[in-house]
């Protein structure tokens, strides 16, 4: 049952999956608390336009995609500061960018199997260089969240009071959005554009059902998400199903059970 982890690709998938799980779920907790759950999938879809652009112009895919995602995150953040809710901005750009991506990819004449890799990801194809990148990024996210979690939480809970405190929320907010965008792009290699928003929203949603406070959510979400990666990989290996989908399914099941516990436990 555990023999997937006797292979190097299995261990790399587990390592990469957990690194990605930790960062997306930590950032995702704020996504859920801010009620901008559309944002994750929005950024993922926007980065699809980035993939298309890179393939069309024959430029490095990761670099272009990260740039596109980060810039759109900042633009959406700016719009939300001007009173357009993050989700509305995303809704507008969502389908347009996807269409744009498809058009550019087909114009580039690239083999469609490469496109499938972006849509569905391939966690079993992770390399050591991916792991190093994910480690650095995950460390950055963890440190950022430890230092600035109160900024993010307070500005969600009571933005006016942050102004009274004269706290510098704007740079923190934009840094948060950029980190979220970058984490999403690097997790796309693992889980794909279609499933990545589940990694952001589901663990935080599950933990919000069982923990009373935001502090509890921030501790529980990464645990739930990491365990889902472990279980998801084992399930995928033993039942011969795609790993990304299996991980997301496990997270869905966890959500369903925490929901049951919540309503049965009162």
């Amino acid at each position, binding site marked *: 049952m555990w023999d997937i982890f006797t292979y190097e690709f299995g261990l790399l998938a587990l390592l990469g999956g957990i690194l990605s799980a930790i960062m997306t779920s930590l950032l995702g907790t704020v996504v859920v*608390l801010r009620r901008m759950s559309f944002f994750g999938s929005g950024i993922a879809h926007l980065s699809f336009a980035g993939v298309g652009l890179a393939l069309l112009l024959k430029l490095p895919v990761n670099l272009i995609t990260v740039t596109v995602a980060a810039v759109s995150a900042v633009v959406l953040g700016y719009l939300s500061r001007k009173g357009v809710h993050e989700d509305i901005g995303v809704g507008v750009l969502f389908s347009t960018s996807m269409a744009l991506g498809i058009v550019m990819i087909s114009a580039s004449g690239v083999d469609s199997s490469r496109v499938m890799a972006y849509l569905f990801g391939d966690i079993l194809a992770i390399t050591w260089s991916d792991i190093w990148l994910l480690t650095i990024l995950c460390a950055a996210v963890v440190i950022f969240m430890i*230092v600035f979690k*109160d900024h993010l*939480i*307070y500005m*969600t*809970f*009571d933005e*006016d*009071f942050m*102004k*009274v*405190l*004269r*706290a510098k929320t704007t740079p923190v907010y934009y840094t948060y959005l950029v980190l979220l965008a970058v984490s999403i792009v690097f997790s796309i290699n693992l889980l794909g554009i279609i499933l990545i928003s589940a990694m952001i929203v589901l663990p935080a949603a599950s933990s*919000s059902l069982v*923990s*009373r*406070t*935001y*502090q*509890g*959510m921030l501790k529980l979400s990464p645990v739930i998400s990491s365990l889902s990666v472990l279980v998801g990989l084992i399930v995928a290996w033993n039942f011969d199903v795609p790993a990304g989908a299996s991980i997301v399914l496990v997270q869905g099941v966890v959500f369903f059970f925490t929901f049951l516990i919540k309503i049965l436990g009162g």
Partner: protein
Amino acid sequence: MKCEYCLEVKDLTVRYGEITALKNVNFSLEKGKFYTIVGPNGGGKSTLVKTIVGIIDDYDGQIRIFGRERDEYLQEKMVGYVPQIASFTKFPIKVIDVVLMGLFRERRFRYSREHYKRAIKALERVGMADFSGRLIHELSGGQRQRILIARALVSDPELLIMDEPTVGLDSASQAQFYELVKGLKESGMTVLMVTHDVGFVSEYSDAILCINKTLVVHASDVSELPQSFFAKLYGYGVKAAVHGHER
């Protein structure tokens, strides 16, 4: 140079796009007194308060706090602020953490044990210490209001501004609240409070400001106000309420 004024507002004009909420407001408040702001709905009371405490940054005119420019003062200290109506959406934050927000500027990366002690003390002052572990949205409206008063007090501000803090308080809590304010005044704090509770105004406050887009009257005693004043200000008679507190 020593400054005798706690707050000076000169030619203050605040607009929301097309709407002018405040126009050429002028007044000065002395240190250590209890001031009340009254005025009709939409008269600009909350706008005035938000501009003083730093929520609204877009204004014309001048605001000086303890003799210094508003921004310069706020950079160093904060003004205690209790917002109008504590209608937070469901948010998983504990009462103690809400009060700790008031100490956000004093902490270094995290809150110390000393900060927690002060937060508990602030909760004791409003009689809510037993609720420190509850979630904020599990409390009743009046209880929430008291938590926000604790949050404003926890940093020991020199100037405390409250926007309708007694709305939703039962009469016992109101009496307790006014005792609290009296104590604060005795400790040297300047208190500025928005209220529609005209009856209480006469009993407790040293002076009263009436705001309806601009400063209508600044009276040092409620009895200086003409009887018809409130009727004119609000557009209908609230004389009875004032009358009831006449000595």
